[in-house]
């Protein structure tokens, strides 16, 4: 086992695509790092450079303290799980799993012991004689995992290993992968564009956008302290609501944000945590409100300065919660980041009215709100997020 270090890693393809730009990342021994970002942001490219399958344009990849830039994939002693599984179609499950071991000329008995052990862990022992074409999707996925595990490599590299599974199976395998990684304690780099997978699996999560690393940190930190609009919008599901607002200070030294013609009063502690905010007095900023930081005021009690009034556009009952979409009279935020996010989510960009933004709140299932009803939404103002309107960076301590 070993840590992985990437220094100023860069990849330019022949056609000029700058797929990865100056990636600096240190993954410590035994850590589970998730690389996440929208489609085409260079996650796979980065992973393939670690694996040795893609030539490095510039920069450095170290595994276990050794620079491996010029080491071919077969000598890097890392295992990869492919999105497509890439099982050997002509070999049965046993031979698929043992392939790498036989190449390493391990003792027959040792190979057999390891293959059977892995097959038992992955619940494949009854299918060892089967060919891949006679396996279900989940079983194929586990064979692909088994092939990596059995080698006991320095590190696992996984490229969207669950994206071909249906939702339920994906959840099961997600738990399985978490368990296996914890038991084996092998350094793992896991690529996904599913932020739920990123949040649940990663010790740390690295968010990328167009080849550039945006933020690395524990999942909770990314959720609580996103460094910019992109990370804010990408982490969390549904994504953070972003709306243009204006910061105003009152004569009593209190601050509030104006969202259209409504006002949210900022609690006292907030400015202490975000001293840089004071400089934005009277200026337009981007206000971020997570759906889960809102609640039906009819349940939570309306508090002066922490309520937004609107009417419910759309009510989606999910069972455990109710998603309520409602418009506020404030300009929507259209920046580079939000465009990228909308593109990734497959939403039309800027099609909503210029003067109004639709927010989504995640309310308790006890709410009685119905579509078209006038509502009051209680906002947890202590958890509001603030971003610079020009640069999109989060406003913390200047």
């Amino acid at each position, binding site marked *: 086992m070993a840590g992985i270090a990437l220094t100023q890693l860069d990849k330019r393809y022949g056609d000029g695509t700058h797929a990865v730009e100056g990636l600096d990342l240190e993954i410590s021994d035994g850590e589970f790092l998730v690389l996440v970002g929208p489609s085409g942001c260079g996650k796979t490219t980065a992973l393939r450079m670690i*694996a040795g*399958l893609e030539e490095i344009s510039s920069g450095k990849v170290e595994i276990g303290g050794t620079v491996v830039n010029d080491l*071919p*994939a*077969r*000598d890097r002693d*890392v*295992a*990869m799980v*492919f*999105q*497509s*599984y*890439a*099982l*050997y*179609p*002509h070999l049965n499950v046993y031979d698929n799993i043992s*392939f*790498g071991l036989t*190449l*390493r000329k391990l003792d027959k008995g040792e190979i057999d012991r390891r293959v059977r052990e892995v097959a038992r862990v992955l619940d494949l022992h009854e299918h060892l004689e089967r*060919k*891949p*074409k*006679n*396996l279900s*999707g989940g079983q*194929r996925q586990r064979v692909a995992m088994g*092939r990596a595990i059995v*080698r006991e490599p320095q590190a696992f590299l996984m490229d969207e290993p669950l994206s*071909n599974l249906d939702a339920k199976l994906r959840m099961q395998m997600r738990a399985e992968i978490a368990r296996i990684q914890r038991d084996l304690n092998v350094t793992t780099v896991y690529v996904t564009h599913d932020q739920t997978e990123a949040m649940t699996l990663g010790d740390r999560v690295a968010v990328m956008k167009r080849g550039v690393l945006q933020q690395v940190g524990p999942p909770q930190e990314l959720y609580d302290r996103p460094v910019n609009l992109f990370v804010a919008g990408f982490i969390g599901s549904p994504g953070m609501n972003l709306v243009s607002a204006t910061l105003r200070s009152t004569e009593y030294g209190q601050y509030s944000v104006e969202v259209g013609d409504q006002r949210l009063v900022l609690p006292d502690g907030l400015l202490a945590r975000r001293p840089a905010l004071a400089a934005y007095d009277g200026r337009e900023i981007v206000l971020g409100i997570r759906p889960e930081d809102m609640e039906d005021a009819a349940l939570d009690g309306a508090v002066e300065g922490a309520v937004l009034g609107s009417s419910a556009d759309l009510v989606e009952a999910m069972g455990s919660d109710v998603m309520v979409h409602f418009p506020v009279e404030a300009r929507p935020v259209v920046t580079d980041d939000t465009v990228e996010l909308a593109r990734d989510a497959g939403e039309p960009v800027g099609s909503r009215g210029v003067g109004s933004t639709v927010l989504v709140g995640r309310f308790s299932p006890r709410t009685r709100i119905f579509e078209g009803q006038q509502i009051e939404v209680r906002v947890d103002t202590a958890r509001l997020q603030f971003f610079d309107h020009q640069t999109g960076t989060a406003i913390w301590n200047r």
Partner: protein
Amino acid sequence: MTLVADPVPERATRDTGTGGPPPRGIVSRVAGWLGSRLLRGALVVIALFWLMPVLGLLVASLRSETSNRADGWWTIFTAPAQLTLDNYRDIVSNDTILDSLWNTVLISVPATVLVVVISAAAAYALAWIDFRGRDWVMVTVVSMLVMPIQVALIPIARLYGALDMFGSIAGVVLFHVALGLPFGVFLLRNFFVGIPRDLIEAARMDGAREWLIFRRVVVPVGLPAIASLTIFQFLWVWNDLLVALVFADPESQPITVALQSQLRQFGSNIDLLATGSFLSMLVPLAVFFAFQRYFVQGVLAGSTK
């Protein structure tokens, strides 16, 4: 979805709801049944028509020379008693024919094996190994495909003369190999590039060098194409007359040349010709059926999703 008083959702469910084929009227079903019957009948007729010469050859080889000269092969349907194995008895004691048949084997087997092995290795390199000038090699290979064989005969004959190889089996084999390679490389390369990249890279990650990837992944997965090439090349060499006629001297002549020279010497010694030809046909048939099982569809099934 909410219920709406609108005919559209109802039609939508009828269109998409049933998984099977749309229900058909009795008329179209009868027409379909008749159609498939007719089609099958037509196929049988065509196949029989195609087999006619072979059947004629087989029957002729089973009749004595006198009967063959007296009337056509179809008379066996009325007089099956004329069938005899005499021709086969004669031919197995005919050294010229047997020797040439053996020569055909000595030419065909190495010429096939060499072409298949070299083509496969070259095709793997051209498909999966990055090296400078790869595309130009491929262009050259393709351009050699269009070269007619006749163009090469005289220069190579002179070269063989200079190298003192003229007339030998090795010379014939080499010519066939040279001639078969462009097509072999082209066919296999096009199949190999269709193998998912992940599969090759998975083997690479598993620690395999190029040679092992080739042997343990690409060749097994490429078997259908390799089997096709084997059969194609074998048939071509086995049935070749032109190359052997130019390059083989009498000691190394294959069966095609031997039969052809019989034809010239005696005019119509159909008993020998038919029997020899039929014997010579059996081997390619056997090869075909031996390799047929590799033409399986979906070798890649289950590898990727």
